[in-house]
């Protein structure tokens, strides 16, 4: 349970961090350490060099500019959870974060770290996809931007290339109301099934919808057909029945001793119904 030896550097700029990451074959950034340090302890990760991002001021902070909310990758989950700006601009992110770990893990754990880690049962990837977030990535060749849906590739796999750093997430103002619900063994655990639901209703018509399932496959699953039905038929009780019938239950591949694939498939429709209803009933009008 003790990590294998490694070297450690704590740069203060992104440029220096990129240089350090490029200097070692198996260098690795460390953010909040809430997933990486356990991996080091189990020796699932054995980097030769840890590049600590905690001393780089430009990577933390929440800023709203021209209708776009930019959250630095190193911003602590607890800070984002408590942020009024985030609550107004992207309530779904706050709703998702309420399910991520516990106060002590959120005090250290970062927004960027959770996305870069890309645990298939993590809440934030689903929220990022449902909010159509843009991931800002820095590498030796400069900055590039990737849509959340293209960023999350598989289990613990993202569009980040070795040596790159996720520097920020950018969010347009959330369209519509939302809810994030999950079934987990205990509060604060990773989800067995998670649902991010966002519904934008205007003049009785559904103009935008996002329904994203997590914890069921290698990465979060966007329910395209269900979203289409919502947009076509509106968020009426009849439409919701049709939505539930169109959920991608065959996408469930996660099958574990604590939760079989069949169990997860049984949970999904009811959880989706509750999430859509909770979103519609929510008083948060962004």
């Amino acid at each position, binding site marked *: 349970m003790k990590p294998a030896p490694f070297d*450690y550097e704590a740069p203060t700029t992104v440029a220096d961090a990129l240089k350090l990451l490029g200097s070692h074959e198996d260098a690795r950034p460390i953010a909040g350490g809430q997933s990486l*340090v356990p991996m080091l302890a189990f020796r699932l990760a054995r980097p030769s060099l840890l590049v600590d991002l905690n001393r780089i001021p430009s990577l933390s902070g929440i800023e709203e500019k021209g209708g776009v909310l930019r959250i630095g990758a190193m911003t602590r989950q607890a800070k984002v959870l408590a942020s009024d700006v985030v609550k107004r601009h992207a309530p779904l992110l706050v709703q998702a974060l309420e399910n991520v770990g516990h106060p002590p893990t959120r005090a250290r754990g970062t927004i960027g770290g959770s996305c870069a880690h890309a645990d298939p049962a993590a809440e934030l990837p689903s929220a990022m996809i449902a909010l159509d977030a843009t991931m800002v990535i820095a590498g030796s060749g400069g900055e590039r931007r990737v849509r959340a849906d293209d960023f999350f590739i598989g289990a613990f796999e993202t569009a980040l290339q070795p040596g790159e750093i996720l520097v920020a997430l950018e969010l347009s103002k959330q369209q519509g109301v939302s809810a994030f619900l999950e079934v987990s063994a205990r509060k604060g655990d990773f989800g067995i099934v998670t649902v991010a639901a966002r519904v934008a209703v205007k003049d009785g018509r559904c103009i935008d919808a996002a329904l994203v399932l997590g914890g069921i496959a290698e990465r979060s699953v966007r329910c395209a057909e269900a979203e289409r039905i919502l947009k076509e038929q509106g968020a009426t009780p009849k439409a919701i029945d049709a939505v539930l019938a169109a959920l991608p239950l065959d996408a469930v591949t996660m099958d574990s001793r604590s939760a079989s694939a069949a169990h997860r498939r049984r949970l999904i429709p009811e959880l989706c119904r509750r999430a859509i209803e909770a979103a519609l009933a929510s008083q948060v009008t962004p």
Partner: protein
Amino acid sequence: MTARNVSFTLNGKPATLAVEPRQTLADAVRQHLGLTGTHLGCEHGVCGACTVLLDGDAIRGCLMLAVQAEGLSITTIEGASPPEGLSVIQDAMQRHHALQCGFCSPGMVLALESLFAHTPCPGEDDIREAISGNLCRCTGYQPIVAAALSVAEKNRANLGAAAPSA
């Protein structure tokens, strides 16, 4: 890897330790300073026995590297206890029989210290959320929650606050 010096504030006093980068903060305070009140249960973030305060916030001592503490302020259970007797939270826990083996207690006390620092009069939900990352194998949590509620009650009386929670 060679040891390097790290300087930080520990329990209100300056401390400098020579640590290997792979050493966790919890290991460092236990092994270098003999502060064994910080317990190690799982060593991978699950149990909360290793809880310490970082600038007043409860964090996992086993998930922070000691080298990362440079310049920061850390409080362990030794620093959260008065030189004589018990702190308010410790006293409430004793009165409510909120411990049996005591292995989880330092972590529970610090998780609650962190809660009360932000929220002097928490409600039951706040208390349960605050200790949700701390496992106790003995008490069933009920007496720990009761102890914390009694502290909240006392704070409310002292502050003259009417609201049931913050």
